[in-house]
């Protein structure tokens, strides 16, 4: 078998050195009753060609976003990734290396993590960032838990413009750890007054910008209101490219930023693996979950990098750890940092400008379709459209016409009739005029 190098001669020689009669005999500590006597009901081994065909058969039953016009967003965005990124992350020294616990043999990984942490801090306008987390939702949840720790309070306020999956993830943590969450209802029309929900028992207020329904807001006032009551402001960003065009959370008074980095370097991949970004201010450094890469010097006085402040982590603090997280999102963070490095300041800002322009062009086309209304008066690259009939039906109809029109809000909020006519549409730099014309025409037809 191509991945198993031993020959029978090898095995015999090794057994002889061990002094055991057979490989089976090495399992003698396993109680007889627990040992499987025969093979399991699974197919036998296969060559590469067969396996490729089998996987391709699964793929063939799907319609991918590279094959048809796609305007799906809601927390995952289709962007063009430069060819160099995928080549670099597949270098064996990146792909098949381990967590950099031994810094002398991991300076490659550690240096890119240090660069990554710096880039995340710069993008978000915050002082420090960690070396990534599983995804934006779990980063947001960890942010709330951290705010509880820092303020020694146990009640979070969550905006109605936070992505529903992120809300659910926070709810799971709340249930696990026994803290309270005041969830403001979904807020497509920007009616919520979060400041009124903050009191002396509130640990944090969680907002998303741009919001789930598209809106771009200034939450500096809300940050002040939170701080006045001793609470922290947590800002969530699900489309990291937006920070190339809009004011960053750090400039609006955020204390913690939890974001999804998938848009840079990483494919849509049916939802994972993605990369969570986590940033905060220096004063909260020791309360941060996740891995941290720090600068130091070696025995020859040269600059180098190491994982640091590990005593916050599970493998040392055990039950007193700041989190139970073990892995970060290594290779996805590498893809993110390489893509952002290739973009640079001018490229990143231009990419953001392109995204916004595409979305504005799409909105302008759709505003001409009778019966539909663009709900979000501000947006970055995604906005909510109000349709004259349930959005899920319209989306399904368009999908049959080979257009992935957008995410019906009811997919994520199925119980709420008042949101059933809302469709979320995202337009990135990958949207062409032809795609947008096709969508507008298709939509016009579907809502007639």
């Amino acid at each position, binding site marked *: 078998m191509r991945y198993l190098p031993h020959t029978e001669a090898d095995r015999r020689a090794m057994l002889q050195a061990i002094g055991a009669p057979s490989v089976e005999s090495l399992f003698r500590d396993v109680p007889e009753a627990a040992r499987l006597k025969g093979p399991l009901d699974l197919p036998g081994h296969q060559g590469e060609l067969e396996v490729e065909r089998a996987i*391709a058969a699964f793929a063939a039953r799907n319609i991918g976003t590279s094959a048809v016009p796609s305007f799906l967003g809601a927390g995952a965005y289709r962007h063009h990734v430069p060819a160099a990124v995928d080549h670099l992350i597949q270098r064996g020294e990146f792909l098949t290396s381990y967590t950099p616990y031994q810094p002398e043999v991991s300076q490659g990984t550690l240096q890119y993590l240090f660069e990554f942490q710096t880039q995340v801090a710069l993008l978000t306008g915050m002082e420090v960032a960690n070396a990534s987390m*599983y995804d934006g939702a779990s980063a947001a949840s960890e942010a709330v838990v951290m705010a509880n720790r820092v303020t020694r309070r146990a009640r979070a306020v969550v905006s109605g413009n936070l992505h529903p999956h992120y809300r659910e993830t926070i709810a799971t943590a709340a249930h696990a750890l*026994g803290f309270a969450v005041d969830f403001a209802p979904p807020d497509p029309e920007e009616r919520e007054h979060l400041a009124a929900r903050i009191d002396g028992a509130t640990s944090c207020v969680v907002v998303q910008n741009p919001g789930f329904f598209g809106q771009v807001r200034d939450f500096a006032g809300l940050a002040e209101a939170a701080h006045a009551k001793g609470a922290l402001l947590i800002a969530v960003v699900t489309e990291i490219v937006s920070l190339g065009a809009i004011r960053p959370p750090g400039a609006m008074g955020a204390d913690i930023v939890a974001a999804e980095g998938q848009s840079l370097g990483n494919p849509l991949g*049916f939802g994972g693996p993605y990369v969570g970004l986590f940033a905060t201010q220096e004063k909260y450094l020791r309360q941060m979950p996740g891995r941290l890469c720090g600068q130091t*010097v070696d025995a020859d006085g040269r600059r180098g990098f190491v994982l640091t402040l590990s005593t916050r982590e599970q493998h040392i603090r055990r039950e007193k750890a700041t989190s139970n997280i073990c892995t970060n999102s290594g290779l996805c*963070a590498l893809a993110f940092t390489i893509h952002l490095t290739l973009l640079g300041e001018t490229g990143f800002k231009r990419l953001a400008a392109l995204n916004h322009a595409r979305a504005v062009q799409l909105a302008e086309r759709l505003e001409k379709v009778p019966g539909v209304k663009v709900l979000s008066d501000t947006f970055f690259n995604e906005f909510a459209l109000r349709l004259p009939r349930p959005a899920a039906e319209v989306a399904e109809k368009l999908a049959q016409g080979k257009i992935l029109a957008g995410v019906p809000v009811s997919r994520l909020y199925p119980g709420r009739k008042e949101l059933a006519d809302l469709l979320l549409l995202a337009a990135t730099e990958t949207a062409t005029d032809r795609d947008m014309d096709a969508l507008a025409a298709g939509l016009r037809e579907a809502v007639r």
Partner: protein
Amino acid sequence: MSANPYGTISGNRGLQLEEPLIFERGEAGRSGVDLPEPPRVESRVGGLERRGAIGLPGLSEPQAIRHYTRLSQKNFAIDAGMYPLGSCTMKHNPRLNEKAARMPGLADLHPLQPLSTVQGALALIDALAHWLKVLTGMPAVAMSPAAGAQGEFCGVMAMRAAHEAHRVKHGGDKTRTKILVPESAHGTNPATAAACGYAVEAIPGDKRGRVDLAALKAKLGPEVAGIMITNPNTCGLFENDMAEIGKAVHAAGGYFYCDGANFNAIMGRVRPGDLGVDCMHLNLHKTFSTPHGGGGPGSGPVVLSAALAPFAPLPWVVAGKDGFRLLERAEGEAAKAFGRLKAFHGQMGMFVRALAYMMSHGGDGLRQASGDAVLNANYVLAKLKDALSAPFEGPCMHEALFDDRFLNGSGVTTLDLAKALIDEGYHPMTMYFPLVVHGALLIEPTESETKETLDNFVAVMRGLAERAKKKDVEFFHAVPRLTPRRRLDETLAARKPILRWRPADGEKQAAE
């Protein structure tokens, strides 16, 4: 400019090239991409444009490729050599897996596409789930946890939800507040139990390196929600009393969590479901070859017993007459799901890789893999136990444990010995874990290593052990000598944390 120990003008050392940070390399005006001029539109960001510089450096494509290539050359990797890291299962990462994960129709699927357009993706997840259920003998599996630690959280939360449901249904029954965890457990176990709101009580081990069954039974009671056992355990030994532990825990009304990090030793040979396990996380990035990627991403699906299956987190992939459904709400069949662990559905990219791995090996190949993994570890144990000191008589499972008694009086520590391995072309083994022996060295070769590699490794270890016993402390305190950086000051990094690059004094990094 820092010191240059090589005596070259550039500071480089042949193929080993120094490489500064991108912030020191790049310039704001450069870019490695060509993007079209954005069309002129009326801005709709509500006056909240980003003002000022972000501070990102720009590199051209050739510079970027050179930068990351040079960085990669400073890393050890499975592709280059052996990692004898106990409990990490650093096996070969097949390249077919990478090809499979990148296929159009998989890599470019949006998670929220209409289900009619992603039936193949759901079928793939279901196929992987099937393999995991058959291998473990369990009826259900939660696919969404992003890594092992999140898998543990998932298992413990399912246990908690089951207890709550029982209390709601049957009333009374004082809240169960404790989880029992062996002293030898990996740190994630107690951290996870605490993250789920439980108090943790440690179970001691016995002289044979297993969980002390009598002590365990004595600690069981109505406050115990469950136990977390690693099997094979962190000493590389099979917990022979596993089935009895299961019975005792169930009799006390608790649930049985198994940490499946070491599943590589028993796949195709033992099914945890046969031993009374209620939930077990699997590490696709250990047992099932998905790449470690320098620290992630992982994937930690959790197989579940019939008792815990109803509480699995969302979403659920369910096969039906009319195709696959994705249950994303806690209603209907999924009414008792304890909630959601992260956005979307799970680490799909790792599912594709793991399935390609499983299909390649087949049931026969997986059984052969666990056999070879155990053979390799026992070979290393047999060849080193006279030169080092092994706390437990063999046979071991997939990893061999040594302690530092052989270093007594030498002035050389486990750490010193492990660092010496670096100059010899090996990654150090797991050190100082498990905590139950002193100065532990835990070696897991995996089935990917040839006899030649193991013989070479053994020769190096024997040579180093001998040198240590000769008290060559000076040698050991100087290693590693041949790496791009040597003996980095971790104390300084922790006392004065510098976690990002900052521009020279005076240059403000605008956040507007």
